[in-house]
């Protein structure tokens, strides 16, 4: 019996293409909306991605990765003395202004001061140069975006060895790192904790974070609790820090609305256009379905036929949509657009498409169940 359903579906090419493209379009919209959602969240906690540390210790008032509240210099020693802590290193994160020697516009950067002796938390993907050169003279490591941004100010393309200024102090590029891009377009400049002081207007307290690792074989949660109890500071794993930050964004930024709108439109288009087209397709076939009923096709068989048709339309449309999106993501320059195609996204979209197709099938089946087999005798 289902063969008849397949012939009905594939037999009318134009209608079949319409059905599939509706689902495909909905898939694309929802996938891109969700990728944007996770992409923006990823941008919002990029600093916690770019600096590698198992445990982050911050001021108790901090609610998100971008909030760099100063700590006291003594806090790093207090953290170090907590049982179960293997090492603890100071970190500075703050805004600075970069400009080319001899004037020109300034560009905002996120300045990272890594612990001078250990370079704890240093970026792991160095495209050019050597991270250890950070310790030499005026050495800084910049990210690839920084080169582009500075080129926009005066048309010169900086390279390793070139010099620029922050806070009227010279900084020499000793390497280029590949890092995740942050919110607001600011790029990353890495230096040592000691020299970071030079690159920002003077401030009393420099340390914003303490990066920590628990000793090997020690469970992390008790260490977090111990740090909190002994220092009164907030101690979070990298994942907790990011999640806290993401939650803050969800509560306080317009992202959920923007993305909700895109995903919602995708769903509504899917339901409205594909669902409606499918329902119309079934309605247009109601005479034939009536004939099948008259000839003795049971309601169950007709239902299976319609569900099969809806499932095929859903699978094919979803498949093409996801294919198109993967292709699109593969040609996007890495890290530039706030789009992350997590593996969970296709699953979520698949669930939504399934919902749409089943809704269309259920309404259609209900409508077809109202068809009297006797209508086939009517002209």
């Amino acid at each position, binding site marked *: 019996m289902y063969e008849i359903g397949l*012939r009905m579906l594939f037999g009318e090419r134009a209608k079949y293409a319409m059905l599939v493209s509706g689902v495909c379009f909905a898939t694309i919209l929802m996938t891109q909306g969700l990728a944007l959602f996770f992409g923006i969240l990823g941008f919002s906690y990029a600093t916690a991605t770019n600096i590698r540390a198992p445990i982050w210790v911050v001021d108790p008032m901090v609610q998100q990765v971008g909030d760099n509240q100063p700590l006291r210099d003594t806090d790093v020693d207090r953290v170090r003395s907590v049982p179960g802590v293997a090492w603890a290193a100071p970190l500075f994160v703050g805004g600075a202004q970069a400009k080319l020697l001899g004037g020109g516009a300034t560009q905002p950067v996120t300045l990272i001061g890594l612990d001078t002796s250990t370079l704890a938390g240093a970026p792991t993907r160095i495209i050019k140069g050597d991270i250890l050169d950070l310790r030499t003279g005026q050495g800084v490591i910049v990210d690839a975006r920084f080169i582009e941004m500075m080129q926009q100010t005066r048309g010169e393309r900086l390279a390793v060895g070139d010099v620029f200024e922050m806070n009227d102090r010279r900084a020499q590029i000793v390497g280029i790192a590949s890092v995740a891009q942050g919110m607001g377009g600011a790029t990353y400049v890495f230096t040592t904790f000691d020299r970071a002081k030079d690159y920002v207007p003077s401030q009393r307290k420099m340390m914003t974070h303490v990066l920590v690792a628990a000793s090997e074989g020690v469970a992390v949660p008790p260490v977090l609790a111990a740090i909190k109890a002994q220092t009164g500071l907030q101690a979070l794993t990298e994942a907790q820090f990011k999640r806290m930050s993401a939650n803050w964004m969800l509560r306080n930024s317009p992202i959920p609305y923007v993305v909700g709108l895109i995903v919602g439109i995708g769903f509504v288009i899917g339901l409205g256009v594909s669902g409606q087209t499918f329902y119309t397709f079934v309605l247009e076939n109601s005479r034939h379905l009536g004939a099948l009923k008259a*000839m003795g096709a049971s309601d169950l068989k007709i239902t299976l036929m319609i569900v099969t048709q809806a499932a095929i339309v859903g699978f094919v449309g979803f498949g093409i949509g996801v294919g198109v999106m993967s292709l699109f993501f593969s040609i996007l320059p890495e890290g530039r657009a706030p789009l992350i195609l997590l593996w969970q996204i296709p699953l979520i979209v698949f669930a939504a498409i399934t919902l749409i197709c089943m809704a269309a099938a259920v309404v259609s089946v209900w409508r077809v169940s109202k068809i009297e*087999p006797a209508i086939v005798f009517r002209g």
Partner: protein
Amino acid sequence: MTFDVINEETAIDVRGVGKSFSNGDQSTLVLRGVDFSVRRGEVMFIVGPSGCGKTTLLSILCGTLRADHGEVHALGMPLHAIPQPEVTQFRSKNVGFIFQQFNLLPTLTAAENVAVPLLIQGVPLAEAVKRASRMLASVGISEKSGERPNRLSGGQQQRVAIARALVHEPPIVVCDEPTSALDSASGHQIMKLLSEVARDASRSVIVVSHDPRIYGYADRIAEMEDGRILRVGESRHHVLN
């Protein structure tokens, strides 16, 4: 009360059947107590003016429509009393349909269309199409078996429909105005074909028509008027009248 015995000879027996349709708050009485029976092996015509209830009666006696009251026994099954799914199953096994508008599925080939009753019964596609092709040969258009209906003439489409009605060898074949969408010559060819291939000692063929030119193909004719059977007679009487 009539005392017609439902015997081996009777395929369908309709007793006191009434049916009305309601359109909003208006209700039309379409069948007003019909008593009627069809024997095995005969070609029975139901004739009468348009709107007198022929199609409604045909629908009820083959089980696509339920009567409001009265009894319908077909092949010993009380169609008026058994649940709908059983009636549906009864139709799939026992009834072949020929419709006025052919009602072939436009996206299926002729052979696949003929195979539909077998597919409904769960016969695998390959075997169903094989049997369908044999059936198409016996209605004389085996060369069209791979064509879609829109590539066939009206007469050819109705041949496909006849093949479809017979492919599962049903004991009952119902035809509603089988020639009214055809010109007179094709109409005669179709009726000739139908009486040749459908006629069988154990099969009842019921034809609804208001086209007097084909009444000659009937064994018996039931005349209807205004929701009632006026009389049932041998076809010869009609042809003579």
